[in-house]
């Protein structure tokens, strides 16, 4: 008995003694950020994905910078001009030094651009940004880029290629870079260490050309689980977190230890409809009989768009962390339409259109979507299905793990065609302007040109293609924006897809920190000030 009691007491004492120590307060010079997704590598040219790019932005810089609204500005290049329609000339910022003290020159630029297509086993190389360009060094601080055809997206492309040191990064592998060998850039922070699954640590580059950065040390912690990330912030494990779950935003707003900042994202959540087939596999008459593909009728498409109560989805499901959408990108972006507005919710008009189209009793439909790819995706699809059911379209929902969904939605059907009849998906324009949405989503699918890559509905409209093609060959910004806006209007009025809402990106930080939210979803230490 005594023994038992003693063991109990001992166990208790052990727990109390070893565990219940107060946490040491973080030093004010250090910023600890809880990230939702982990970079797969510290090699900036290895994997073109947000988690990798945002971390790379601290160590490496690009020739052209993008501000929090993805507006282009001077980066490592301080000036540029068009020599003719096919030739751009760039002047580099003088007196910029790499972290190892060596000077930055045009050789580093050319080295970096040549490295991009030659990273072995890169799961997502950045070749789309370097393709079709030839580089020519004029002198140490000047170089030219030539293209075969006029290329208006030159600056957008250059904003996506990180400049590495030709000296330090020659002959280093991706694994070397992960270990810190050759991970040398010109950026505001220097690479310290990368522990996969746990953390990535940076320290201040005191000699940065734009002045001394705010934080002496930056630690990114990888905390995938949403509730844990919030808990890590509340318990002081980290100073700020990204991707605050929408269910927690309202509660955190009332917590006086925390400040919330958000930014409208360039990510559109939309519905794509099968326009490829005359009979589509997941649409049937209510008695199960095969019917012709109703999505080929404009009235049906308009009816579906009108049946959506977008505001309710934004308010109830997204808890206000989204904005109703009427086109492919929020209208702060270049090339968007100033006239398109979100389609108003109108059940009566929607039913009428459906009757006029020859479906007075509706039909039955299955919507497919990813499960866990976008915030609240499953709940949104369920709400959409209920809204369609209200106008007489009996709608079932099937959500799949993202890995399965995207593979089947892109080429799960016969002859590698898209498999589903209607999908919910999300899209963000990497270029930060309208052609980056209109081309992939609504341009006619073409394996050669790269147009229509994400056009999983196979919408095809010669008028849209023509405007797009013209825009992509127009170097003048104002003219190009006009053409893209017109193309967007044609495609959206034709209901090539049904826009639902734009996501908002949300960050939460401890009181006293100021976070400037970015539309491109990047979480950067440079956006955080005391």
């Amino acid at each position, binding site marked *: *008995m005594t*023994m*038992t009691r003693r*063991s*109990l007491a001992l*166990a208790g004492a052990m727990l109390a003694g*070893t*565990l219940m120590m*107060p*946490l040491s307060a973080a030093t004010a010079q250090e910023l600890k950020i*809880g990230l939702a997704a982990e970079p*797969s*590598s510290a*090699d900036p040219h290895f*994997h*073109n*994905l947000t988690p990798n790019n945002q971390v790379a932005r601290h160590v490496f810089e690009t020739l052209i910078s993008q501000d929090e609204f993805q507006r282009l500005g001077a980066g490592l290049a301080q000036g540029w001009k068009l020599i003719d329609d096919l030739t751009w000339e760039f002047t580099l910022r003088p007196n910029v030094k790499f972290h190892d003290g060596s000077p930055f020159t045009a050789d580093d630029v050319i080295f970096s651009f040549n490295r991009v297509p030659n990273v072995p*086993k*890169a*799961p*997502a*190389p950045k*070749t*789309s940004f370097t393709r079709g360009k030839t580089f020519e060094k004029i002198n140490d601080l000047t170089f030219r880029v030539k293209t075969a055809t006029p290329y208006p997206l030159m600056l957008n492309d250059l904003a996506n290629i990180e400049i590495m040191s030709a000296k330090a990064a020659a002959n280093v592998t*991706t694994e070397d870079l992960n270990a810190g060998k050759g991970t040398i850039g010109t950026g505001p922070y220097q690479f310290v260490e990368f522990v*996969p*699954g*746990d*953390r990535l640590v940076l320290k201040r580059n005191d000699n940065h050309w734009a002045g001394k950065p705010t934080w002496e040390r930056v630690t990114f*912690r*990888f905390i*995938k*689980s949403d*509730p*844990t990330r919030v*808990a*890590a912030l*509340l*318990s*002081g*494990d*980290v100073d700020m977190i990204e991707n605050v779950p929408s269910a927690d935003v309202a509660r955190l707003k009332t917590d006086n230890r925390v400040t919330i900042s958000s930014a409208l994202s360039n990510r559109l959540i939309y519905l794509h409809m099968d326009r490829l087939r005359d009979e589509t596999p997941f649409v049937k008459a209510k008695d199960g009989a095969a019917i012709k593909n109703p999505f080929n009728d404009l009235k049906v498409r308009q009816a579906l768009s009108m049946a959506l109560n977008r505001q309710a989805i934004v308010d109830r499901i997204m808890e206000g962390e989204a904005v109703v959408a009427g086109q492919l990108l929020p209208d702060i972006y270049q090339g968007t339409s100033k006239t398109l507005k979100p389609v108003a919710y109108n059940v009566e008009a929607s039913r009428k259109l459906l009757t006029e189209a020859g479906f007075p009793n509706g039909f039955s439909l299955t919507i497919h979507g990813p499960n866990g790819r976008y915030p609240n995706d499953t709940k949104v699809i369920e709400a959409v299905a209920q809204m369609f059911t209200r106008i007489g379209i009996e709608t079932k929902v099937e959500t799949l*793990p*993202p*890995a*399965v969904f*995207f*593979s*089947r939605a*892109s080429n799960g059907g016969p002859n590698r065609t898209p498999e589903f009849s209607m999908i919910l998906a999300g*899209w*963000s*324009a*990497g270029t930060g302007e309208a052609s980056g949405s209109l081309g*992939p989503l609504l341009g006619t699918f073409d*394996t*050669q040109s*790269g147009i229509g*890559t*994400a056009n999983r509905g196979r919408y095809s409209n010669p008028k849209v293609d023509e405007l797009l093609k013209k825009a992509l060959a127009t170097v003048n910004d104002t003219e190009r924006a006009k053409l893209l806006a017109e193309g967007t209007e044609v495609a959206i009025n034709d209901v090539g897809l049904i826009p639902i809402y734009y996501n908002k990106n949300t960050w939460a930080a401890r009181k006293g920190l100021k976070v400037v939210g970015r539309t491109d979803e990047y979480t950067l230490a440079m956006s955080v000030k005391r």
Partner: protein
Amino acid sequence: MLAFIIRRVAQALFVVLAMVIIVFFGTYVVGDPVWMMVPGDATQDQIEQVRREFGFDKPVHVQFLLFVADVLQGEFGRSYVHGGSAIGLILDRMPATLELALVALIFAVVIGLPLGVFAGLKPDHPAARTIMAGSILGFSLPTFWVGLMLIMFFSVMLGWLPATGRGPTTTVLGIETSLLTLKGWQHIALPALNLALLKISLVIRLARSGTREASLQDYVKFARAKGLSPKRIVGVHILKNIMIPIVTVLGLEFGSLVAFSVVTETIFAWPGMGKLLLESIQRLDRPLIVAYVMVVVLLFVTINLIVDILYSALDPRVRLAGKNE
């Protein structure tokens, strides 16, 4: 004896091979990993280029043979997402998982054993009834929920322990551990407790029934009649006898602690191999998934092999059965 071990090793190799085939083809059926690798705005020829680079365009049996060739060269495939050797990535993360499982095991014994012995000695005591009811909760509450509650209570409300991650590590005899610093223990406390919860309940139940059974044995009655102190009866005569089944079960359970720490590691952002597995499944990183399964199967097979060898050493019938075949 040697024939027995050889036969067992051959069986083990067969199990590994079968698991590799099942997992390889299973993940192949799920989908094309290229969609988890490329960014959304990748063009069709970029996608095709990546598929060619990684061999996704080849028929599945060719992909499998290429993979087997890699394995035979000791490469075990390279992770699609991370680029490094799959087995290397797993072995890098293994110390963290082993450490977590070990501490969980210690918690299970340190907490479970005294509670179970007490409940066995005084089955009608209200505290004993509470312990037994608690052990049912330990069996039935979902790990992820308990994990979140632990974080809410100890980290957010009380602020005693960090919510996530592993403490600073030091290398001792080539093994990386975080258990030598106070900070390391603060970090491991909650995840280990979370992982141990089920095992604590298991130990409580084993210890209780063992104690009840042992208390009625003649040797305990004799010891009591001899006038030995209760402390000595429990500490020596009972405890020694109930430890045999507990040690056997925990030995086997250690394997499952290592293999199924996935949920706990994800919730506590513990940088172990379970978290890596979950992320790899989500990204369809086939070489990593297959390598993980191979490591875990080898772990189980090794534990079973050791147990079998011990049994055959203890029990001649096992050996004889081997010879007669």
